[in-house]
């Protein structure tokens, strides 16, 4: 019994379950020479063209960029940059229809080429001397992401530290119509092999297996010739069957291994790269030519000259189609990608991206629309065709029923969305669409579940924190009360005792008290209260300094309690007094002014007419009038206006007196305060008053 490696060396091929044989229709383009497309008027370069995160933009509108100059910079390993495909000026950076099935807009750099093709400095690497790290860095900096379709960052796949048995180069290109890789292999087999050499240097595999579908004899011959000097490079012709180019399927075809569910090929010692990626790797490392262009098959019956075009990344599909003589039909479909897995474009301004291998513009007779969806007759042809050995008919049933548990049990996640099931389905059921929706739904549910868990944790943490704070506060208050009692001088204690005694006496004989006595007592109580408040403000301050060591959130909460205290009118005044005697004076002046006003114009109809905000629109200019140039003041004024608008709306039916007086009050301080911080304080005061007035108004209404 020969070992697996011996079998592979001997050229044994295996088979995968299912698969279909759709008409290939590659002859329209595969025999023709590769054409370089002239510069389009505009290039639309989405900043994210791969799986992962976008790089950080480092250019701005109006800037001139050179060919190959990076437009974004990768600041983590899942990001790869994009580059200016040619020299020119950046017109703007905006949201533009993306090359994604959803066509949702994504950030795109719009570039006007100047036709000079002026390169930035290029520094080719010498792979004989370059170390592994610098090569990988070069791959990332050159913006290389898998060009087979998924667009996974290549430096991650090539920088794998796990031991690699086989490096598989995917040149199968099994989807009908597409011949971009075929053209590349015919055009540049030696560069491809150089790219494979670099990948080998990074991964050091036992053998390199190059899988090509048997219907590309010229490419096979070219690659075989280019590999003739390499001992452990094996070019393998795989039988024509869709989807033999699927990653998992090709691995099974060439090595008889299966990637365990939920794992990656690297876990079984296999790394797969697309042939176009290998080419891009060679260009990036040896020529310092980042990924700026790619070969795109433009085909379909509505295109007069179907051919393979070397197009710059960012070329709008419309320019590419026009270049090939596109004549649209009514109900035209334009597909990005192949007929099996590609997606239709809603408009033609979508740009070519790094993963675009085909633009297919079929006539309606060539690829007719799917007929009406009939009921599943459980014929099982989908199960026969499924390369992942799933049971599509059951999955359909559970997808319709939204039974996510059953879908998981029937391994929906293992569906590679190749479309073989929907291709064979006699009832023309768009099975893949059902699975995609179900998969998205499941992903969303998982996300929600995770979020719910986090929310719960945060909620519980918050409750625990609040509870702890409450306990702490309680303990502190008790402590403070104790220390206060101890620290208070004897005479004040006596005073308290005296006051208590007086209270008792009062209770005993309140009727006998003279008016002067009562007034004096009241004065005394007032003084006591003031003293207590001052003390409290001091302790509050010390609490704030204590809480600095806590988490920021906690700190903010303490601040919150402070500010909440500040909201109350009298307290705020007290605090201000403690902090700054000047402010206290100002506050006192304010209060006096207000009291005067309230006394002077309580019910004058003229004042009411002048200041009463009858509608939000009226309130706005009234508040805006005293505003100075300061933007913060503007914000305050706006806030005031809103507050007033609210109030006006709420208390429209209530008596006008409190409204008018409060409105008058709120406007005055703003006009008087030159200092911005004071203005904010005043605003807070005004708000609190407005609220009070509002509640008063409501109260008076209920009275």
């Amino acid at each position, binding site marked *: 019994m020969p070992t697996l490696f011996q079998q592979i060396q001997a050229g044994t091929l295996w088979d995968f379950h299912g698969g279909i044989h759709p008409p290939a229709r590659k002859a329209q383009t595969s025999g023709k020479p590769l054409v370089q497309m002239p510069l389009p008027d505009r290039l639309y370069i989405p900043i994210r063209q791969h799986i992962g995160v976008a790089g950080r933009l480092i250019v701005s509108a109006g800037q001139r960029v050179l060919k190959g100059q990076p437009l974004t910079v990768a600041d983590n390993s899942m990001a790869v940059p994009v580059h200016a495909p040619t020299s020119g000026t950046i017109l703007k950076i905006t949201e533009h229809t993306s090359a994604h099935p959803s066509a949702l807009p994504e950030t795109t750099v719009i570039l006007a080429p100047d036709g000079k093709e002026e390169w930035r400095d290029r520094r080719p690497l010498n792979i004989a001397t370059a170390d592994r790290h610098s090569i990988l860095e070069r791959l990332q900096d050159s913006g290389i992401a898998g060009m087979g379709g998924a667009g996974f960052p290549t430096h991650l796949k090539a920088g794998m530290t796990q031991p690699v048995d086989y490096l598989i180069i995917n040149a199968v290109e099994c989807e009908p119509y597409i011949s971009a890789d075929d053209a590349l292999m015919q055009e540049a087999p030696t560069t491809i092999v150089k790219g494979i050499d670099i990948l080998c240097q990074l991964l050091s595999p036992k053998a390199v297996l190059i899988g090509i579908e048997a219907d590309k004899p010229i490419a096979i011959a070219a690659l075989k010739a280019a590999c003739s000097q390499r001992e452990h490079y094996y070019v393998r012709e795989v039988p024509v069957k869709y989807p033999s180019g699927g990653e998992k399927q090709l691995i*099974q075809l060439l090595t008889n291994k*299966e990637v365990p569910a939920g794992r990656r090929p690297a876990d079984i010692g296999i790394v797969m790269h697309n042939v176009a990626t290998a080419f891009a790797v060679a260009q990036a490392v040896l020529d310092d030519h980042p990924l700026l262009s790619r070969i795109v098959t433009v085909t379909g019956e509505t295109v007069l000259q179907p051919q393979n075009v070397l197009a710059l990344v960012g070329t709008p599909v419309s320019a590419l189609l026009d270049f090939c003589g596109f004549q649209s039909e009514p109900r035209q479909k334009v597909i990005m990608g192949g007929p*099996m897995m590609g997606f239709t474009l*809603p408009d033609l301004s979508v740009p070519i991206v790094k993963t675009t291998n085909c633009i297919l513009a079929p006539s309606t007779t060539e690829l007719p629309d799917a007929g*009406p969806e009939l009921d599943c007759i459980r014929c099982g042809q989908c*199960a026969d065709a499924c390369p992942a050995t799933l049971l599509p008919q059951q999955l359909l049933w559970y997808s319709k029923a939204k039974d996510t548990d059953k879908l998981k049990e029937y*391994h929906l996640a293992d569906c590679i969305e190749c479309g073989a099931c929907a291709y064979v389905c006699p009832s023309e059921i768009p099975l893949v669409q059902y699975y995609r929706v179900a998969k998205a739904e499941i992903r969303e549910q998982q996300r929600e579940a995770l979020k719910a868990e986090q929310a719960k944790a945060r909620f519980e943490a918050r409750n625990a924190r609040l509870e702890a704070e409450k306990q702490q506060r309680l303990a502190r208050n008790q402590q403070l009360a104790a220390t206060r009692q101890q620290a208070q001088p004897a005479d004040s204690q006596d005073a308290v005792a005296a006051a208590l005694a007086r209270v008792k006496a009062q209770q005993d004989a309140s009727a006998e008290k003279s008016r002067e006595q009562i007034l004096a007592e009241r004065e005394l109580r007032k003084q006591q209260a003031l003293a207590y408040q001052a003390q409290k403000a001091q302790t509050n301050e010390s609490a704030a300094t204590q809480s600095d060591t806590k988490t920021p959130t906690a700190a903010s909460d303490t601040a919150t309690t402070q500010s909440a205290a500040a909201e109350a009118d009298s307290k705020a005044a007290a605090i201000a007094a403690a902090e700054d005697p000047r402010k206290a004076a100002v506050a006192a002046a304010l209060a006096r002014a207000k009291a005067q006003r309230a006394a002077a114009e309580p019910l004058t109809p003229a004042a009411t007419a002048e200041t009463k905000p009858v509608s939000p629109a009226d309130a706005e200019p009234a508040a805006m009038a005293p505003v100075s140039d300061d933007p913060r003041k503007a914000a305050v004024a706006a806030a005031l206006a809103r507050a007033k608008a609210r109030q006006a709306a709420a208390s429209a039916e209530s008596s006008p007196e409190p409204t008018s007086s409060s409105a008058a009050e709120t406007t005055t301080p703003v006009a008087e305060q030159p200092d911005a911080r004071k203005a904010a304080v005043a605003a807070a005061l005004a708000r609190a008053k407005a609220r009070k007035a509002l509640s008063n108004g409501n109260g008076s209404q209920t009275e």
Partner: protein
Amino acid sequence: MSFKIASSPHHHSQRSTQQLMQWVALAALPGIALQAVFFGYGVIVQLLLAISTAWLSEALVLWLRKKPVLPRLLDHSALVTAVLLAISIPPYAPWWLIVIGTAFAIIMVKQLYGGLGNNLFNPAMAAYVMLLISFPVQMTQWLPPVSLQQAALSPLDAFCMVFMQYSCSGFSLSQLQLGIDGTTLATPLDTLRQDLNNGLTVSESLQRPVFFAFAGTGWLWVNLAYLLGGMLLIKLKVISWRIPLALLAGLAVPALLFWLGSSGASPSPLFHLFSGATMLAAFFIATDPVSASTTDRGRLWYGALIGLLVYIIRSYGGYPDAFAFAVLLANMCVPLIDYYTRPRTYGHKAKRDVK
């Protein structure tokens, strides 16, 4: 111009449900023709009746369910149900029998379960069983092969028989059932069964004129014709080879064992394979995709189960031929079979994760 948004794949094989059903109906034609030749033209009349009833009732229910009538009528699934039922019942059964049967099949067994694709049971077979239980006399009035009949019936006679139960020349069905030798002739399976019950050996019983060849004149040819049609369907990949093969094996293996054990008391496997509705059931009835198992291994189990059940009922049960019962029983087991025969998904362990 406007663009059309569609979901991938954008390419579809050109085979539709309609075509699959058409092929099933077409492949049954040789068998039907031979059936008409050997057992009289009644089958043609029954076919016409069945098809029109099926279309009418399907259209009616679709209209009541507010579904598009024409597209669903044109999927030809009702047609296939009607054909299968019509060729299963005695050719000169009264007209109302097939009408009731077909309407029952379409309305009760198929549409009330949710229409095509949702029915638990094979509509034709469920209707057959219903008829057999409700009208046992009419359902067992098989005529002997034409060559053994006293008076051959013309197509016109066939028409009269079905609608009035008398041929144009005034013969009643029971008169026609009498053989040349004046004894009532039944189907080979029936005859054999009675003979065996009466203590005759198989070889003695096979001397009777109804058998002429090893499985009876006519029956052999009809079965061969259905086998041919079935092969065509497999070739065209309309049906999978698994169910027919497993079914025939499930029938032949026990037959072989018992035949080897006591050839006097049990007929040969070949007799079983080529008499009654064996081939029709194996290739046309059991392969009805809706009510059959859908996994590869499940289909083998499903077919084998039917074959075995048929053997048991033929040998020990109360009915001479038992496909309808066997198919319905197997239909009931389908969810179970499907559940336990799920294939191993790519990248998963061979051990089934049955909870």
